Every structure is written in C-alpha cells, then in structure tokens.
C-alpha cells in the first residue's frame, strides 16, 4: 500500500479522531494508524480482560459477573458539559447519530465532612443545605449578578470589570464565605486549584456560565455521558473520518518515521509500517509516538478505578454522579474528583457501579491521597490504580510538520481537549476551526450523491 496522503494521524485518541474526522470531511486524504488493536489510545474504554491486562497482568482478578465486553471502563474519567464545545462538535459533525447519551444524575460537592448537591441556580441555592440562611441570600445575589451580567449594559456590571478585577474581589463584594467560594470555584467553575482567586474574573465567569447553561439544558446536572463509555467518542469520529474516505489501520506499529532534509531542516515525510510506506507532508500524533518531541508538564495524575456493588452512599441511590472534593476541604492543593457510572450507561453488568477517583499527585504516597474519596465510596470489590504523566509538545509543529496533541489532563470534562483540537487545527491549517451544520437539503443530496459514488 505505498501511497500518498495529505495527513497521517498516529493514535486513535479522541483528539486525533476528531481532527481526522474534520479533515476528512474537508476533503483531505487521511491515513489513520494505531499501534494497538483497539480504538481510543489513552482515551479508550477497556473491556475486562484489556483492563486487567493493563493494570494487573500477573495477579488474580476477583469473580465478576458479565461477559468481557459488558465492561467498558474509561481510562480517563471525564464527562461532557451539556452546553460545552464537544457537544457542539458532535452535533455539527452529526457524530451524534452513532452515539447515545444519558445524563449524569447528580453533581455533588464535599463540605465539612459530608457531601451535598451543588445548587445550579438561584432556586436551588435557596433550598441548598450547603449554606445558612444569610449566606443563601448572598449566594443568590451573586448568581443573579453572574446571570444578568451583560457586556453591553454597564448597569449590570455593578462597577466591576471582568478583565481587571479578580475573582476574589467579586466574592468579597458579595460577602461570600470561604466554603461558598470553594463550591463556586471548584464545583461550578470546576477549577481544581485556588490559583484562579487572584486571576481576573473573566475565565471564572465564563466557566460558571457554562455550568449554569449546561444544567439548564436538561436539568439535574450539567453532565452527559455516552452509552458504552467514553471510548465511543473516538470511535464515532473515526467512523466519520472513514465515511469521508479516511483509511484506518489498527494493530499497526510504526517501524520507521521518514524525514526530508533541506538546508539542515528535517521535515516529516512519511512512515513505514508492515503494510509498506505511506507518505504525507504532515502528521498528527499523540505524545507516545514522538517521545523525543514532548516534555513533561510536571503534573502527574493518579486514577483509581473502583468496582462497587452499591450506589455511592448519601447520593439518593442515583445511578451516576460526580463528586468533587475541593482541595481546601481536605488540606490539599488539588481537588479530588470522583466520577460514578453504572449499568444504565451500559459500562458494567447490572448491579455494579464504577467509580473513578482522580487527582494530581502531591506526595510520595499518591494512593493515600485518595483516601478521603475511598471513605465516601464504601466497600470496594476491587481497585485498579494507575499513574500517568501529563505531556505536551515542545514545538508547535509548523517547522517540522509534526503536530502533537497534549495528554488528557485531570479536569473533569472535555473543554481542555476541545481547546487542544482547535489549537492543533489552527496550527495545521492556518485558519480557525469554524463548525457549520450541514443543511438538511445538502445532506440529502449528499446521501444520494455518495451512495451513488460521488
């Protein structure tokens, strides 16, 4: 198969698959390769045997019900924000056709030793048992300020400038207590450290708005989750790419990377695999394919996959939930996240619950750092732990044609992933990513034209 392509993509993680899909739709000839024999790379969902092979190859595994493929365990725990950018991309590319989504039933925050539902609007804030009566009123006024804030109407600004005033100044103005700041900053704006307090307020404002609008979309919580696990997302975009002519080769290690050298500058030229030589002027890859071209960000994430036989206590027996333990509440610098899904999401057989606990490592005994989360979960049938280093590219790729994605970070949603997608797209094409919904008529003629073979 010695052939020429416009783009070669290495790794089938979500970032690579979204770009592969978008570029194929735009008419680029894409060759997409993964050295592993399953889709998803670092963002895959693994079946039971894949999971135990990865995390505990030699040791025994407990008796677990169900067939191998009744288990789809995410390697990276994240949820989609209902009003977030990934949702937007899914809708615009029509990949929603291949994937069904369900809501995450609740969003909880840890405070003073117990967990409580995160209030997402003024009404819920007034009912919440997170705050005393006076604090509720202050919280209500704060949320009204955020929701009514209108760029063009200075009277709604209450004297603040989101680009110069810090978040702390705004909190102080509304007289909010530290515990309230914790859940606004960590459970709504989803910051996982307190660094945001002394930064300008705009990013926090935008994150709160994203949270509030996402809750408003379907109620209950701001989060969505694909049936059969997050691994469906890369598969869906891979299918989009394939439908528009992308060629996929899994289980295909890269034997050699080819370069062209002109005036001492080495540029990417192609790859050699068991199938032959494939040439392309550019490559998009996850960090594992070019270890010499990425650097550690310094952050290391510990993730623990916990198998439970009961819903998480004190969450009203919900089938799925996110729990955030703000760093202040347990004397840390980074929050601990717990993401819980169950058989209603078709990721475990009936009767099981899957809780993935994660945080950024701060000590030499990372597993002990997760204890506060384990306490909330109750008995666990099994716990599989892994530590991952977070990488990012050293260069932007424009010089050598090698465009490398970032590792999936510890954040609880996909907003940083889609930022990376847009950033890569801009670096590769020189223009910003504009998503246009294909109109229905276009689509119809498209269908006809294409089954007829364009």
């Amino acid at each position, binding site marked *: 198969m010695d052939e020429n392509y416009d783009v070669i993509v290495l790794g089938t993680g979500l970032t690579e698959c979204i770009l592969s899909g978008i570029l194929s739709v735009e008419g680029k000839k894409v060759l997409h390769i993964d050295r592993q024999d*399953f*889709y998803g790379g670092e963002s895959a969902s693994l079946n039971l045997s894949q999971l135990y092979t990865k995390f505990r190859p030699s040791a025994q595994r407990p008796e677990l019900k169900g067939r191998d*493929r009744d288990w789809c365990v995410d390697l990276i725990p994240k949820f989609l924000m*209902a009003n977030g950018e990934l*949702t937007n991309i*899914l*809708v615009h590319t*029509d990949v*929603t*056709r*291949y*994937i*069904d*989504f*369900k*809501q995450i039933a609740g969003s909880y925050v840890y405070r003073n030793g117990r967990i409580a539902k995160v209030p997402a609007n003024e009404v819920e804030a007034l009912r919440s048992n997170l705050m005393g009566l006076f604090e509720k009123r202050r919280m209500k006024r704060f949320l009204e300020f955020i929701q009514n804030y209108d760029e063009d109407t200075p009277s709604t600004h209450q004297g603040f400038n989101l680009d110069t005033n810090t978040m702390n100044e705004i909190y102080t103005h509304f007289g909010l207590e530290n515990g309230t700041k914790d859940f606004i900053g960590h459970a709504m704006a989803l910051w996982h450290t307190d660094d945001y307090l002394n930064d300008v307020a705009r990013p926090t404002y935008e994150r709160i708005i994203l949270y509030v609008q996402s809750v408003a*979309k*379907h109620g209950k919580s701001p989060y*969505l989750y694909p*049936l*059969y696990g997050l691994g*469906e997302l890369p*598969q*869906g975009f*891979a*299918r989009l790419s*394939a*439908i*528009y*002519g992308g*060629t*996929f*080769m*899994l*289980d*295909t290690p890269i034997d050699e990377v080819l370069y062209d050298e002109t005036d001492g500058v080495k540029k990417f030229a192609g790859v050699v695999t068991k*199938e032959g030589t494939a040439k392309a002027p550019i490559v998009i890859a996850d960090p594992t394919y070019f270890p010499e071209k990425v650097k550690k960000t310094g952050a290391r994430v510990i993730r623990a996959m916990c198998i439970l036989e009961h819903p998480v206590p004190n969450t009203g027996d919900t089938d799925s939930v996110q729990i955030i333990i703000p760093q202040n509440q347990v004397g840390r610098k980074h929050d601990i996240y717990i993401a819980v899904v169950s058989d*209603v999401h*078709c990721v475990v057989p009936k009767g099981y619950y899957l809780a993935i606990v994660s945080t950024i490592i701060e000590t030499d005994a990372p597993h002990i750092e997760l204890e506060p989360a384990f306490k909330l979960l109750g008995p666990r049938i099994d716990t599989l732990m892994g530590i991952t280093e977070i990488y990012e590219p050293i260069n932007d790729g424009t010089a050598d044609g090698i465009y490398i994605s970032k590792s999936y970070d510890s954040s609880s949603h996909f907003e940083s992933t889609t930022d990376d997608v847009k950033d890569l797209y801009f670096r590769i094409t020189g223009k910003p990513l504009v998503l246009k*919904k294909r109109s*229905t008529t276009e*689509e*119809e003629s*498209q*269908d*006809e*034209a*294409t*089954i*007829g*073979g*364009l």
Partner: protein
Amino acid sequence: MSFPNPATSVKLVLLGEAAVGKSSLVLRFVSNDFQENKEPTIGAAFLTQKCTIGERTIKYEIWDTAGQERFASLAPMYYRNAQAAIVVYDITKPASFIKARHWVKELHEQASKDITIALVGNKYDLVEDDTEEESLRKVSVEEGKGLAEEEGLLFFETSAKTSYNVNDVFIGIGSKIPEAASAGPNQIHQTNNDGRIDLTSDPNNRPRAAGDCAC
C-alpha cells in the same frame, strides 16, 4: 403515506470484501438505482429506509462499513446493537466467499447472539446467461446454501444491477426479526424513553427518514 403501527427500528450492518456490491445493494434497496463503476464507498453516512411487511413497518438503519474493514479495523461500535447483518460475497470471486465465512464467524463473536444474518451472493446478472462450458460463476449455489445452513443464516443470490432478489433480502430479514425485539438490554436502539438525551434538541435537526421502499 401513513403506517398503521409505529415503525420498529432495526440496525442493519453490511459486511463483505471490497467491491462485492455492498453499497450497490443498499442503493438499489433505498433508491431503486444502480451505477456501473461505482467508486469505493465514501460519505454514505447513515441511510434509513422503511419497509412494510404485512402489518409491520420496519425502519432499517443501514450501516455500511465505510472501508474500515479494509485493514481489519472495524470498531466495536459497528457491531453494537446490530439486530441484522448482511454478509455479501461476489459469486464470481471465490476469495470473497472465503471472506464471507470469516465475517460470519466475526459476527457470532462480536454481535449480539440473537442477530439475524443473511448471506448474499451478489452479481447474479453476470452468470445468468452462462452456458455449461463457459461460466463466470465461481461459487455454486450449493456452497452458499451449505454455509447458510451450517450457520443458521438466510440465503439469497442477488443482483444489485437488475434488482433481482434485492428487496427479498430485506423482507426476509424483516420477517425473521422477532416481534418483541424492542425488549431487552441489547435493543436499546428501539426505545426512546429511557432517559437518553437528544443532543441536537432542535427537532428539525434530526436525521431525515427516507421514503418507503418498494416492498
């Protein structure tokens, strides 16, 4: 046109070697059309076609491989919840029949166990006028039937070109799909009220449903 019963949605996947006529069979079924020298499948995203069999209306959601099978890279998503599959070979190409055996095995391993599978030997028009001495046919009817019986499959020989037997494949599958297919965890594609979220929210953005088929 109105339908007496709400349509049962059935996810149907196509499998088979390149160029055996998978997309052509779909084109014939959905649009009653045929094209010589069809290019390999590009862009046939997601086709739907309603089909009335007696009292029942079945809405096929047809998934074409989009070439991901070329290097054995079909995603689990492809088989997921498929209630029907058409495994196609070309009766003038023995290698494509060997490949069909492989796909049947793969389906038994990957798909839900109550999937309805049809084995289809395509390009019948090429052998129609054959004489005893000179025949393009390389896979006999008996071989096809034999495999189908062994594995419990429906069996047809078809021509997407002349439309011979094409609708019969889809009617045959539809008649074999159990009436109560909408129950059970493996058929979640059928019910719409179990808390699944429509990301598009705007009802005008839903995938269009194609017209009725000729059957």
